């Protein structure tokens, strides 16, 4: 029945995949067992990891792509999409993940960067990528490299939402500013934030990023998740927030429900009852510049 050849790995397929995740919660998991809990709680995807960011922080040293055995174990346990992280610039880790059948690759500052000059050339891959950003310039540079989804960086593994808020507000406010500018000013702004002019124009016309924009880094409670959604996120990544809490299953379900009813305080109040302790948090201001993961990547 097919008239012409099939096309794989197109921009439309990559961005389309990301669109299907909208309004959803993507959860960090470190085992098949956790992946099943996440799926049953209503996660739209899981992020397969060796350790959650809070433990990466504690362990220190060089943090790399997860063991393929672990990734395969997780992909076989669930029917929802599986994502996994590669170090910034480590295109061979990305080749490996693509080979393993991972559905989306996160080029992540949570792992130790492998290249301090170049990010992965994401257009060379047929699997879609998500990348972190703290502001519009960073987001557009990643999109220009082929990212099909952006997430705010926040400060992973802290259980502190303040940085995620800062980054989401920064991106939204820059977009609002662009809308009020004429074309010349927009071109000037593009130079200032070191982003391609065409992408800046595109954002100004749409009034939003051309790809899905999730929030990540520090989300620890249902209210945190709703806060990010009300600030304009298309969905959320929850890292350590679920499996570092007292009752992961309950926390996972509560966050999923909150994200779908993010404008309804009644629902949020109800699902927030009796969740037990959230993950232990870290005040971001006590972190030394070296301990801040968000400054990795540019």
């Amino acid at each position, binding site marked *: *029945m097919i008239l012409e050849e099939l096309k794989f790995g197109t921009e439309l397929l990559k961005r389309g995949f990301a669109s299907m995740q909208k309004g959803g919660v993507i959860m960090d998991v470190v085992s098949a067992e956790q992946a099943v809990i996440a799926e049953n709680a209503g996660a739209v995807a899981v992020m397969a990891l060796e350790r959650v960011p809070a433990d990466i922080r504690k362990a220190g040293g060089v943090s790399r792509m997860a063991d393929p055995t672990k990734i395969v174990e997780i992909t076989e346990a669930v029917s929802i*999409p599986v994502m996994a992280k590669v170090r910034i610039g480590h295109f061979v880790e990305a080749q490996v993940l*693509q080979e393993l059948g991972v559905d989306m690759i996160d080029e992540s500052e949570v792992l130790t960067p492998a290249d301090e000059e170049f990010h992965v050339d994401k257009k060379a891959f047929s699997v879609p990528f998500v990348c972190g950003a703290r502001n519009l310039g960073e987001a557009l540079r990643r999109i220009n490299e082929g990212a099909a989804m952006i997430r705010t960086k926040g400060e992973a593994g802290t259980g502190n939402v303040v940085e995620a808020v800062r980054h989401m507000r920064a991106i939204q406010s820059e977009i609002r500013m662009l809308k009020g500018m004429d074309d010349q000013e927009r071109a000037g702004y593009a130079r200032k934030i070191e982003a391609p002019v065409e992408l800046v124009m595109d954002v100004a016309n749409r009034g939003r990023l051309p790809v899905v924009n999730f929030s990540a880094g520090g989300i620890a409670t249902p209210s945190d998740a709703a806060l990010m959604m009300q600030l304009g996120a298309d969905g959320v990544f929850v890292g350590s927030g679920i499996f570092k809490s007292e009752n992961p299953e309950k926390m996972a379900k509560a966050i*999923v429900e909150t994200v779908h009813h993010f404008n309804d305080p009644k629902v949020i109040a109800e699902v927030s009852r009796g969740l037990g302790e959230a993950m232990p948090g870290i005040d971001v201001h006590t972190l030394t510049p070296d301990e801040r993961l968000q400054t990795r990547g540019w």
Partner: protein
Amino acid sequence: MAGKIGVLALQGDVSEHVTAFEDALGPDGEVSLFRDASDIKLFDGIALPGGESTAIMRLIQKAGMLRPLQQYEGGIFATCAGMVLLASEVQDDSLFEPLGVMDMTVKRNAFGRQRESFEADIECKGLETPFHAVFIRAPVVTRVGYGTEVLASLPQGYVAIRHGLHMAFSFHPELGGDLRFHRLFLDRLGL
């Protein structure tokens, strides 16, 4: 005639469905989002978007929408995950209970993982020229019940079907700008 279409806004590519139906209906039509069952009777037709079927199904149950969706009398336009929801049975997953609005069996991720997602021009019954279809971790229909019309199929199974006022697709007619299926759907609703 001015029609009203509702898009189920729990999870997935909701805004893409809204835009596509707004374009297909024209300025007189009205497209709105719904998150619970209270408004459902106001719509001439509803759209079940693409997304993750397990996540959407859980939210449907939680929001008490199971019965209202099963008893809905208007047309349903379902894509990808939406197609899974409409089915009566999911192959290799007896634990998952879909809505059962259409008597059919679906197979999830029938082509494989995201790297096997593809675009292709396919021939469809009722369309004069091929349709450029976008398949993203797509399901297929492996069995249909009596009275179901198959509009398109691939070696893996049926990818576009119609039953009464309902239409279901493995692929995403809401992506890519070709609105011929949306118009066929609206035609049968008299819109």
